[in-house]
């Protein structure tokens, strides 16, 4: 296996997309907390949709939006930035599909946060941003961390939306999962098997990390 590009590309895509999703997911979860129930329910449906939709359907929507003639794609095109058939596009696909995992775990972590801790901190004179960074985040860190690892794992294994938006171009958009499919399709069984093993190893590490994080939570 001389060409490690798919491993590098997959890790790059999963890392960037999970960083992206980490911050947007936490921000959405934090602000959804304060919304009135009706609006929160509606927002919840929209933000969780990618979790239940088939990834190919997400990919179809992404193509519509970011295709060279799509409403967002044509704007990006003007700045010389393209998501179709590029590895950056794969980051976007992975981010959209893994976002609900981060959002939902962060939200349930924030919801199980005892509000009187924030009340106590307020009466002690801590500013609202100090309360967020010094009280709320550390208390919720286990749940948020688990969400981030899950989002990373989901991004790493992304296939459907990725293949729709960026296809399979060796050395450019190939990821582990698209490579496995490509090698199997072209009857390269040993090659496919090697990448399956790589995938298994990474997934095992990720799941062990999640268990470690969740196990420490009481």
């Amino acid at each position: 296996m001389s060409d490690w590009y798919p491993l590098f590309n997959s890790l790059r895509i999963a890392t960037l997309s999970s960083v992206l999703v980490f911050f947007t997911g936490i921000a959405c979860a934090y602000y959804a907390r304060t919304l009135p129930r009706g609006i929160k329910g509606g927002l919840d449906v929209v933000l969780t949709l990618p979790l239940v939709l088939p990834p190919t359907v997400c990919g179809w929507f992404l193509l519509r939006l970011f295709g060279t003639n799509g409403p967002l794609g044509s704007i990006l095109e003007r700045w010389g930035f393209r998501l179709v058939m590029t590895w950056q596009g794969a980051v976007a696909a992975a981010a959209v599909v893994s976002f609900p995992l981060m959002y939902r775990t962060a939200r349930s972590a924030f919801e199980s946060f005892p509000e009187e801790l924030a009340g106590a901190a307020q009466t002690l004179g801590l500013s609202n941003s100090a309360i967020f960074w010094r009280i709320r985040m550390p208390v919720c860190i286990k749940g948020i961390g688990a969400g981030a690892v899950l989002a990373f794992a989901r991004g790493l294994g992304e296939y459907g939306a990725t293949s729709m938006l960026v296809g399979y171009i060796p050395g450019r958009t190939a990821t582990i999962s698209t490579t496995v499919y490509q090698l199997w399709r072209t009857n390269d069984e040993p090659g496919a098997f090697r990448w399956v093993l790589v995938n298994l190893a990474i997934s095992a590490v990720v799941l062990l990390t999640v268990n470690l994080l969740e196990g420490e939570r009481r």
Partner: protein
Amino acid sequence: MKLSVHIKKRLGAFTLQADFETCGGTLGLLGASGSGKSLTLNCIAGLQRPDEGSIVLDGETLFDAKRGIDLPPQRRRVGYLFQSYALFPHMTVAQNIRTGLNWQRDRGEREREVERMLALFQLEQVAYAHPKTLSGGEAQRTALARMLVNRPRLLLLDEPFSALDSHLKGRLQMELKDLLAEWGTDAVLVTHSRDEAYHLCSHVAILEQGRLSGCRETKALFDDPGSVAAARLTGCKNIAPARKTGAQQVQIPQWGLTLQTNEPVKDNLVAVGIRAHSFDHPPGENAFPVRYTGEMEEPFGWILSFRTPGQSPDSPDLWRHLAKTTQQPPKPERLCVRGEDILLLYA
């Protein structure tokens, strides 16, 4: 130190209306659960916003709906001891206390103050322990230290003893009483326990179904509750509707009794109360025949339930409490109650 609270707050079907002023010392808010006690404290601390009215502490307006003033909790300098103590679980005892010293910019001074508080509250042994490993008493002392080190002008104490084992309660109540006297900070203590209110508070206000008005000296309130809610919350077991039938005479239809009172009865009488320990053996005033229906032995006393011949069937048994001086409780055929022990309860 003077706190004046005149607020209204709606929460769903529940409406809180609180009107009271304190004049120093510890004020007890005595109410059943769900009567709006914690909500009142939250409004004073600024954690919840009243719909109407004003809150003034020491001449400084903390909240005024009409003038659009609503100081954030951070600027009210009001200490809050939560029922759960609300210790930060990811911090040690020392770090929790240090959080209350946010205002102290000088680092050395801050560390010295933490050390001082750890010693004062006997927390040196657990300074580096996390809250979940603390005993109830240690957790309470940590929360108190964290609150007091922040130098609040007023303390809000929400059921401070409800999370503790009963054998700890008495000792910690005494400690808290001394502590409040030592620091000289005024406090508002919320409780459903008449004993706590009696032990710790110079004044008590009654909170019933969201309505809180006026506060009275604790002893005076227990001697003469004046309302059905106050009588019940101060532990009066026997309460029944009554009407005035003479200048110093009341009739209680449910018990089939007419009793002579010491004080002149006012026209708006709605009920009377007789505390379980007020019944006595004849001879004496207001004697009436009784039939015993049950007895319950306590470690140091007896509780006897009884009915009067003319008592209506749907009226609950009356209770008598007496100290245990003999092997068997005495059961005289007649009981009496002194006119001064009949609590006159008005609308």
